[in-house]
């Protein structure tokens, strides 16, 4: 390598650095994936504690465990954290780890941008949660309906923290969306055409398209709300001609695709786990792929089903009701695909598979209760009751989180080289499933019986006491299940041998063809792909005839000895970290609490400095 002279601010670290600097400057997709996973898990614990506090408050009628003000902050931050700081980044952890490995690439298309996404996510999340420390957390719900969020009704800083935090998280998600979609389009191994991609990659592609198209909408809505609050514009202020319902439209136009952003990654994970442990190809590959695309597409035409009680008129309600029912079709198709995959397979039961199977069951329950709100008259009864809470926890916890856990158990040996303990895993699975159903199933009855959401307590004698107590017990049991999972991670790291082979599950996709954990360059030789589930047919060439009707055309590929020093990976960089920091300080300076133009100016300087440094850093690899 010849050294090129370039204007420099800090010298770029040019090795695969170790230690803390290695992590701070990393651009390696695997390390970034790990950072995403660990950070999101910490926020999962925080949001889980918030949930348990909510449940303790609701365990008995007329409880005064927390004040109504704190209760509002708790449910707002629980929802916001779980959606933006837990499920999305946990999915991003899987995108980071798996997209390059499954498409046969050495890294994502823009490694530094990838690191920037992580740092912006981290700092944005810290800024959002910083509001707890000043005792002024957001309290308007994760949907932040106007005019409740207006400065007139909500003069505290909480909502401003929420707006600014979400803006930064949105930028992080957008950057990641551009990056992963480009990666999937452009970095596939030779021969890996679109219809040879693993289903997980397909779902990732759909999710990232949704991110790229849905986040600008919430960005604009947040800008408008921020201007209303800070600079006195009138977007959601009827006194100036604005309209609070406009916020609902903008929010749900983003918010409904967001729902699919949360669930589709888990669907992709399940579509990888089930075939492996059934030892069968996924049933109806094209159906499952096109259903995913259809969900992503139809997800744009259903937003007003969140607003059936607003009074948009019978025509709008009917149209959105039909489109909402329509979206159940591709979702149902997927359920049958997964059942068809299991059907007749040589099933190997373990924790990963159990989580996937539980995902199917729980998601069906959540999906069915979801279809019941698709009908406006029925929805009018359910709106703002615990029935809705039950529904979306069945799809988000019973769906997304169980799916993500399945993925964690499935890919843990690939990520770390160690297995998670199966016995602990089974306990974790059992207790979580039981606790989950105890927590959320009674909410169906509570909701149909009229118990309203978002109210800090309820009077005695409504007949809600037992169900609420059961629900609270269930949430504590869930907490125990999560503790077992944490113990399992610690146990795996301390006690389990680092002995995972390349392919411990007899897997089907490319990541199982390389060592566990993978070397930082991933593939010695970029694989050449001939079939869907290519690695499977490389292992079992005799199966090729049956599925494709042609003879095996794998030549014996010689094992080239590759000099690893020649594989040139992108150098680490400081700038993503500083760019994320600069962005957060700059935008954070707009919040009246931290707020001073000096703070913003310092942030702007850091931002410009790192932006220029980034631009002039030599692009090598």
């Amino acid at each position, binding site marked *: 390598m010849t050294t090129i002279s370039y204007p420099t601010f800090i010298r770029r670290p040019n090795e695969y650095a170790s230690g803390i600097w290695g992590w701070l400057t990393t651009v390696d997709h695997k390390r970034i994936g790990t950072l995403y996973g660990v950070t999101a898990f910490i926020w999962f614990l925080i949001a889980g504690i918030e949930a348990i506090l909510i449940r303790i408050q609701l365990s008995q009628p007329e409880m005064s465990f927390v004040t109504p003000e704190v209760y509002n902050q708790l449910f707002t931050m629980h929802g916001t954290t779980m959606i933006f700081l837990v499920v999305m980044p946990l999915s991003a952890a899987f995108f980071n780890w798996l997209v390059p490995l499954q498409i046969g690439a050495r890294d994502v*298309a823009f490694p530094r941008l990838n690191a920037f996404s992580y740092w912006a996510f981290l700092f944005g999340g810290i800024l959002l949660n910083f509001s707890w420390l000043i005792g002024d957390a957001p309290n308007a719900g994760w949907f932040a309906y106007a005019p409740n969020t207006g400065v007139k009704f909500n003069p505290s800083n909480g909502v401003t923290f929420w707006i600014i935090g979400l803006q930064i998280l949105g930028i992080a998600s957008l950057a990641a969306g551009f990056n992963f979609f480009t990666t999937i389009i452009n970095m596939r191994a030779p021969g890996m055409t679109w219809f040879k991609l693993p289903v997980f990659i397909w779902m990732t592609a759909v999710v990232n398209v949704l991110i790229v198209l849905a986040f600008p909408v919430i960005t604009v809505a947040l800008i408008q709300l921020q201007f209303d609050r800070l600079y006195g514009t009138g977007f959601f202020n009827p006194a100036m001609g*604005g309209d609070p319902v406009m916020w609902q439209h903008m929010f749900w136009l983003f918010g409904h695709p967001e729902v699919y952003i949360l669930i589709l990654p888990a669907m992709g994970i399940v579509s990888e786990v089930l075939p492996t442990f059934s030892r069968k190809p996924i049933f109806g590959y094209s159906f499952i792929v096109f259903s995913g695309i259809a969900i992503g597409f139809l997800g744009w035409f259903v937003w007003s089903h969140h607003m059936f009680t607003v009074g948009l008129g019978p025509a709008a309600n009917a149209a959105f009701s039909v489109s909402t029912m329509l979206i159940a079709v591709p979702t149902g198709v997927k359920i049958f695909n997964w059942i068809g995959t299991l059907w007749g397979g040589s099933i190997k039961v373990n924790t990963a598979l159990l989580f996937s199977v539980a995902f199917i069951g729980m998601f069906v329950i959540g999906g069915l209760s979801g279809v019941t709100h698709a009908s406006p008259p029925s929805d009018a009864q359910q709106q703002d009751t615990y029935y809705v809470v039950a529904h979306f926890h069945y799809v988000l916890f019973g769906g997304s989180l169980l799916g993500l856990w399945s993925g964690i158990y499935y890919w843990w040996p690939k990520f770390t080289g160690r297995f998670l303990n199966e016995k602990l895993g089974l306990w974790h699975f059992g207790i979580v499933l039981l606790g989950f159903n105890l927590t959320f199933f009674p909410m169906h009855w509570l909701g149909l019986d009229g118990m309203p959401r978002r109210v800090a307590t309820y009077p005695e004698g409504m007949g809600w006491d037992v169900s609420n107590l059961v629900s609270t017990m269930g949430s504590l049991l869930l907490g125990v299940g999560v503790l077992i999972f944490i113990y399992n991670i610690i146990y795996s790291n301390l006690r389990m041998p680092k002995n995972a082979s390349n392919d411990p599950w007899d897997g089907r996709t490319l990541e199982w063809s390389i060592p566990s954990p993978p070397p930082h360059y991933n593939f010695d030789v970029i694989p050449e792909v001939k079939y869907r589930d290519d690695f499977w047919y490389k292992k079992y060439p005799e199966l090729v005839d049956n599925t494709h009707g042609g003879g095996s055309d794998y030549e014996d590929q010689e094992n080239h000895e590759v000099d690893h020093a020649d594989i040139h990976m992108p150098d680490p960089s400081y700038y993503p970290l500083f760019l994320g920091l600069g962005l957060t300080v700059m935008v954070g300076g707009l919040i009246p609490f931290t707020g001073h133009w000096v703070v913003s100016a310092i942030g702007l300087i850091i931002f410009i400095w790192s932006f220029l440094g980034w631009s002039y850093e030599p*692009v090598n690899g």
Partner: protein
Amino acid sequence: MSNISATEDHYTSTGVDNRKLMMWIFLGSDCLFFGSFISTYLVYRNRSLVGPYPNEILDIPITTVSTFVLLMSSLAMVMGLSYVQQGRQVLGRYWTLATALLGMVFLGFQVFEFTHFAHVGLTPRTNIFGSTFFTMTGFHGAHVTFGVIWLLIFAFSRLASSFRQKMLIFASFLSVVITMVGIMMTETLDVIPHMPFSLAMTVTIIGILGTIGSLYLLRVPDTEPEKISKEEENLELAGLYWHFVDIVWIVIFTVVYLVSAKDGAPLL
């Protein structure tokens, strides 16, 4: 093959450069960004409770001129990119500068319009027309500003091979600015008192002569049309971005200055 690059520049599944692909995806995303602002504007048409209303305040002729300037900047962008891709570095940089300059003129018009509106009494706080108008056009202006900075950085980074070329580019750039100033002076003769017509004409003529002269001297071919570098490929990205921002302006111009120009008090 001494180096196996991780993110191989020469091989992509589609054959399209990664950065260009990402720019297209970004522009798709930006469509939704501006789409949201424009929809908000349209939804809130005729809903201002107090004036000034659009029909009292919008100046279509002036904005037509600034729109024309922005459209011409797209032409300059095409010229710049074309020269850079032919390896004619200097002319490429020159036209890039011209693009940035035209963008700045457009921004000048916008600053003028904003301050004028503020003087007449329309701010984002006045009414819903002000809120929607200023945020939508303001964020468009921010996009133009970013594009101008990008083009300026491109134009001045490793500007040209020799000192002479650098000076010539600078001189021609300066001449164009002087020309513009001169033209503006002639236009504002009746506004600014005591400005002799001869001064305005002199400035304009100096500018025009300087522009022609420096362009004439710049016509010498570049040293060697070498291989297009990575930075120069970036100009194509800037071009995509610039044209996109122009198209957005055409939509905004249509929506604000043509469709809603006659909007007045609320239709209640």
